[in-house]
């Protein structure tokens, strides 16, 4: 067992666990007891991989970014999760969880969403399987992400505005948890990131691990070595990074770099750089690192990227950070926006602003020249066009 993976009690080092009210205990326990057996079933694996191939469009390409490589003086590969159906890595997890929900006999699906990518991915798989779908989304995010709201509605999902607190992702998550408490028997909650009570962080990481599984094979084909020197991914809750890191965790010579959103700057008071600003705490069912006041109240984060403005990180990330296995860094709004435009101009790929954070960190790295670098391009920038337009004045 890898020291970076979840242990039998649901912990990564001191992080993880299941901090849930008794009302959720039976649901979470059922998942804890059954998720590994179910996802290891042959019929599950067959259906999962068949859908990933023919519905999602996997394997996603590992693209050698020639002009980017020339610019930075390293061999830079982009893992193209942006080419997945629905435009981001989120669908890998929702495909897996909808199959799990079916096998658990659940009839109704709930989910939370920030930018809407996970909501769209959940609505998509519910349409695919004909299951009722309710997506909680902060009222402010609903206004900011109208096209994704429309997509969800077209697919038959009900989008419920989370009115409490700051009316963003954190509150949408609270509302989804409340829904689950009130509908314990027939409902499965598809959490969109590697957060939540055990087994969610492990469950989601396993479904996203397809990203690094493919990367290893593709890199071997392209370079003769399955291990790159660096792997980079952006981190909000951290699901694309968890998937991108998964099969490299025990390859200690592969450097893992997780890029958080610094917003207007780590010390500006408007930031989502959790490892820089947070400390140990409990939110949404697990012990992790959390942006909070001295009194233990959760601080509302800020990032120009709606997918990264989460006040915590998944417990596995907290452990990778604490143990030193991963390097956790941050990038400001401005740095990310410039990186997004740079990729667009040099490679003809408009990245999601989330992914632009990972790309931006290249500016801060120095290379020896022949190093291989893989960056998870977690999503495409269509959903962010408004933001790009406003920022650059196009």
């Amino acid at each position, binding site marked *: 067992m890898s020291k970076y993976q979840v242990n039998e009690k649901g912990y990564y080092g001191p992080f993880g666990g299941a901090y849930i009210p008794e*009302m959720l*205990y*039976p649901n979470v326990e059922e998942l804890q007891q059954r998720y590994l057996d179910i996802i290891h079933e042959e019929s599950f694996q067959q259906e999962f991989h068949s859908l990933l191939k023919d519905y999602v469009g996997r394997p996603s390409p590992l693209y050698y970014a020639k002009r980017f490589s020339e610019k930075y003086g390293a061999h830079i590969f982009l893992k193209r999760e942006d080419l997945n159906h629905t435009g981001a890595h989120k669908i890998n997890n929702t495909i897996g969880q909808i199959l799990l929900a079916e096998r658990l006999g659940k009839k109704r699906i709930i989910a939370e969403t920030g930018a809407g990518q996970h909501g769209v991915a959940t609505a998509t798989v519910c349409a695919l399987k004909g299951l009722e779908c309710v997506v909680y989304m902060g009222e402010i995010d609903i206004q900011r992400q109208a096209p994704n709201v429309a997509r969800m509605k077209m697919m038959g999902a009900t989008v419920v505005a989370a009115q409490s607190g700051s009316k963003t992702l954190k509150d949408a998550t609270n509302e989804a948890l409340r829904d689950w408490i*009130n509908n314990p*028997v027939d409902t499965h909650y598809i959490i969109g990131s590697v957060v939540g009570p055990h087994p969610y962080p492990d469950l989601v990481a396993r479904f996203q691990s397809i990203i690094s599984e493919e990367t290893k094979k593709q890199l071997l084909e392209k370079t003769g070595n399955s291990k790159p020197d660096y792997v980079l991914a952006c981190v909000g809750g951290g699901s694309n990074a968890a998937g991108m890191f998964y099969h490299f965790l025990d390859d200690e010579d592969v450097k893992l770099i997780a890029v958080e959103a610094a917003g207007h700057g780590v010390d500006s008071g408007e930031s989502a750089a959790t490892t820089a600003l947070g400390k140990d705490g*409990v939110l949404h069912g697990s012990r992790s690192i959390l942006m909070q006041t001295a009194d*233990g*109240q*959760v601080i509302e984060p800020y990032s120009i990227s709606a997918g990264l403005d989460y006040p915590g990180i998944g417990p596995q990330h907290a452990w990778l950070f604490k143990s030193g296995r991963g390097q956790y860094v941050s990038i400001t709004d401005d740095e990310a926006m410039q990186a997004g435009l740079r990729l667009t101009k040099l490679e003809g790929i408009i990245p999601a602003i989330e992914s632009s954070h990972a790309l931006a960190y290249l500016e801060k790295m120095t290379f020896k020249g022949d190093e291989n670098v893989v960056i998870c391009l977690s999503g495409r920038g269509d959903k962010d066009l408004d933001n790009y337009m406003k920022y650059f004045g196009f």
Partner: protein
Amino acid sequence: MNENLFKDKQDRLLSIYYTAGYPTLDSTINIAEELEKSGADFLEIGFPYSDPVADGPVIQNSSEIALKNGMNLTLLFEQLKELRSRVTIPVFLMGYCNPVLQYGVENFCKSCAEVGVNGVIIPDLPMYEYEDLYQETFLQYGISNIFLVTPQTSTDRIHKIDKLSNSFIYLLSSNATTGKNLEVGESSTAYFQRLKDMNLNNPLVIGFGISNSKTFRQATDYAKGAIIGTAFVKLLAEEDYLSKIKSFIADIKS
């Protein structure tokens, strides 16, 4: 000791939940005093948290306002220094894990003991973590940890909860967040009866969904007491709420 808190009391005990620091920062003790005078048998004082997932909108709103008012655990314990000079009935604190972890669990138990709080209800504190890490500390300071039981809680787990408890067991009327109305139908009476028939060592107190004398009576047909939260927190939003507490309690107990 807390084992005997309810021993000599009559049945149909009424507990009231409200949020510390709501409606105003310094209202906590005045409300407690008025509740005791009006006939409440014990109290649950909530310490606010920014992300209270087990609560419905009314109690969540009261927490938001309490936080805006400036309430926190340090201040609450400061205010509660007056508690035992003004209130004699049992008092429990209710809130979520994270503020307690930041305050420090041992420090929290110590502060509870110093001000005369009898026990705490922390819905998202896992049973395994209490047992492995905190039980000894709680016992050392004489603070009871109250566990919740829902209609979905298994018999084995209920017995384990009973074993770990030394004050009362908080029976949720249904699997729900706070503020839903209790509808006592066949399934809930069967559930209440099942629990009653288990003859647990700790008394049962039913909460969630109790809002008037009818539901209070129905719940206390099966349990030693019942807890009213949302309906009382709504009263606190009214003007002159202190003067209305007496009739609120009288109505429930009628």
